[in-house]
């Protein structure tokens, strides 16, 4: 199938009202959710997932991708207007966005955030289209030992970089892997940790675990400390961004986009570090570096380009290798599975039309984002005024309906509640939840590939070192562990050297 044939096949899947409407609604929901302080893009995608069960695969996935992209952009609106990032990825936007709002230039800051976000989103989507296919064709040579080492590497990096401590990240991943062993054994079909309960034979419901870990702790945090609204929304001001300013910041935007693409394609890093790295690079290279932190429009452009550059790139490992790069792509992999699809290299062979359909949808999403973003900037006040005392009980009820709808099983609601408390305890103890969820998803794959490799080799572990690909991933795993340990030791030393430490 030629490139043009693939595009035509993709277009035949997405070239209908339902698909584009789903994408549009997704971007709209994401932008609104991202703009509500306390709701994150992750929570928005998780809560939207149950609504996609009754949909066809392509509109369902486009809806979720739209929520993802909208959510990442939407976070910048409260970051600029009320100094409260809607999502962690928008934290860097506060640095210059809010000082601009204080100077009466909120409209300009939001305008630049929108232009930078859409440009970065487009660059990220194009990178996805360029690299995912190439990576997938390379990954077609992978067998069980290669997949085992790849997943091991992904888990190592996710556990290492998701929180402040490698050990806590590793503990979180280990708990996720342990939880993934619940259910019938993959090879022999015997019971594992089912405690005689037939509800556990199929393993724990992924959606219940996911919503429990990511949405419920937010409700619990609100119950622990019921806070009213934070901050006061500022007016947009009369200034708006000009083409000259966009042109001046274009280089920064492109640089930030590529930083986002690079960091986004590595599992586990996420949008917030990309935004901060892009911001610091922009400040280092800018002739206006003295203005950074005091309301420099280039700072807003850099941070928004950095975090939006991640959005398309996180789909590279997801689509090409079947490895979710972050929590949101972990949720999206769940949507693929619910619709009977398994992301990975074989998808580029068996479902090429779907892959190209998603690519087309993603490109269109950048334009939808621009349109919806322009409206959202003006209508933010109404979104920000949703009282938290009504929002969070609504989230709780939505979680119950959504989790029940997966299997029509009340047991899953119980699993969600229990996982909610687990997630809350983890939150209170600075144990990152992302490695838990990703390990929970990758656990069966890791074990299955390991056991297949052992069966292939007659139980010889040498097969795990059988060729350059496995060696490459072992090397990367060791390098990651060494780098994280080194960074930890350095951080400890620098803290010790500070006066008053200890």
């Amino acid at each position: 199938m030629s490139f043009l044939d693939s595009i035509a096949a993709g277009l035949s899947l997405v070239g209908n009202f339902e698909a584009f409407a789903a994408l549009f609604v997704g971007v709209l929901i994401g932008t609104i959710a991202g703009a509500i302080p306390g709701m994150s893009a992750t929570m928005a995608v998780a809560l939207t997932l149950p609504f996609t069960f009754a949909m066809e695969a392509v509109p369902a996935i486009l809806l979720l991708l739209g929520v993802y992209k909208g959510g990442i952009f939407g976070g910048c609106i409260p970051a600029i207007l009320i100094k409260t990032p809607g999502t962690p990825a928008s934290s860097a936007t506060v640095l210059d966005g809010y000082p601009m709002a204080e100077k009466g230039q909120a409209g300009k800051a939001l305008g630049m955030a929108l232009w930078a976000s859409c440009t970065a989103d487009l660059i990220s989507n194009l990178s996805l289209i360029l690299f995912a296919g190439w990576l997938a064709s390379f990954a077609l040579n992978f067998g069980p030992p290669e997949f085992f080492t790849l997943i091991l590497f992904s888990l190592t990096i996710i556990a290492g970089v998701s929180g402040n401590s490698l050990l806590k990240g590793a503990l979180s991943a280990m708990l996720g892997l342990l939880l993934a062993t619940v259910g019938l054994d993959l090879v022999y079909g015997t019971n594992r940790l089912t405690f005689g309960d037939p509800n556990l034979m199929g393993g724990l419901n992924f959606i219940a675990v996911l919503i429990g870990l990511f949405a419920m702790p937010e409700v619990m945090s609100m119950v622990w400390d019921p806070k009213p609204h934070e901050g006061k929304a500022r007016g947009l001001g009369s200034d708006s961004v000009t083409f000259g300013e966009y042109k001046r910041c274009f280089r920064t935007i492109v640089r930030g986009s590529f930083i986002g693409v690079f960091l986004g394609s590595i599992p586990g890093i996420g949008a917030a570090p990309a935004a901060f790295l892009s911001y610091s690079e922009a400040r280092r290279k800018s002739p206006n570096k003295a203005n950074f932190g005091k309301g420099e429009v280039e700072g807003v452009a850099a941070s928004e380009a950095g975090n939006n550059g991640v959005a398309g790139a996180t789909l590279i490992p997801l689509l090409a290798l079947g490895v979710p790069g972050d929590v949101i792509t972990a949720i999206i992999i769940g949507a693929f599975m619910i619709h009977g699809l398994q992301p990975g290299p074989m998808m580029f062979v068996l479902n090429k039309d779907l892959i190209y359909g998603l690519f087309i949808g993603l490109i269109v999403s950048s334009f939808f984002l621009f349109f919806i973003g322009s409206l959202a900037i003006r209508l933010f006040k109404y979104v920000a005024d949703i009282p938290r005392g009504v929002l969070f009980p609504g989230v709780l009820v939505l979680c119950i309906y959504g989790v029940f709808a997966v299997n029509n099983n009340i047991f899953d609601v119980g699993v969600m509640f229990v996982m909610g408390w687990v997630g809350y305890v983890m939150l209170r103890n600075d144990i990152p939840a992302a490695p838990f969820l990703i390990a929970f998803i990758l656990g069966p794959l890791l074990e299955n590939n390991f056991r297949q490799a052992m069966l292939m080799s007659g139980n010889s572990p040498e097969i795990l070192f059988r060729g350059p690909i496995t060696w490459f991933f072992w090397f990367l795993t060791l390098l990651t562990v060494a780098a994280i340990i080194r960074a930890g030791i350095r951080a400890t030393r620098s803290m010790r050297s500070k006066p008053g430490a200890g």
Partner: protein
Amino acid sequence: MQRIKRQSLIGIASIIVAAVLMFAIIPTWVSSPSNVRNIVLSPLFWPYILSGLTVLIGLGLVVTGFFTTDPVEPEQPAISGGYGRLGILAAIMTLTMFALPRLGMVWTSMLIFAATAFLIRTSHPRAAIICAITVPLVLYGFFAHVASVAIPQGNYVRLP
């Protein structure tokens, strides 16, 4: 030092959980066929390996918790009535599990919504009551009539 102690406590808790898994739960609740020739392929292998690794990580947390001299950030101040509210939320969740099959999802959700809204001291009680009634009904409409999900109706009042 509170945070450091907490890290060690997390480590100790992980070791205890892993030990309980290794010595009590896995031997009892993971069944393996008798004809498995190699331990590597046994259904027991993976849970034991993961429990063992959890012990190692727990030890790492204990050691780093006791011996590092990291300056610790101040502990989050205890919020007045925080534990009490969390206890009430836990009770709401437990009651939900009992109420869902008996009262039905819509009526239970209305009660949960209202209870949670007042638990978090909503400053908009009227809006909360209106939403407590409308949100579960709208969700019921979507899931039951659009997504064709059999929402539990309970034993008392059934919705169309």
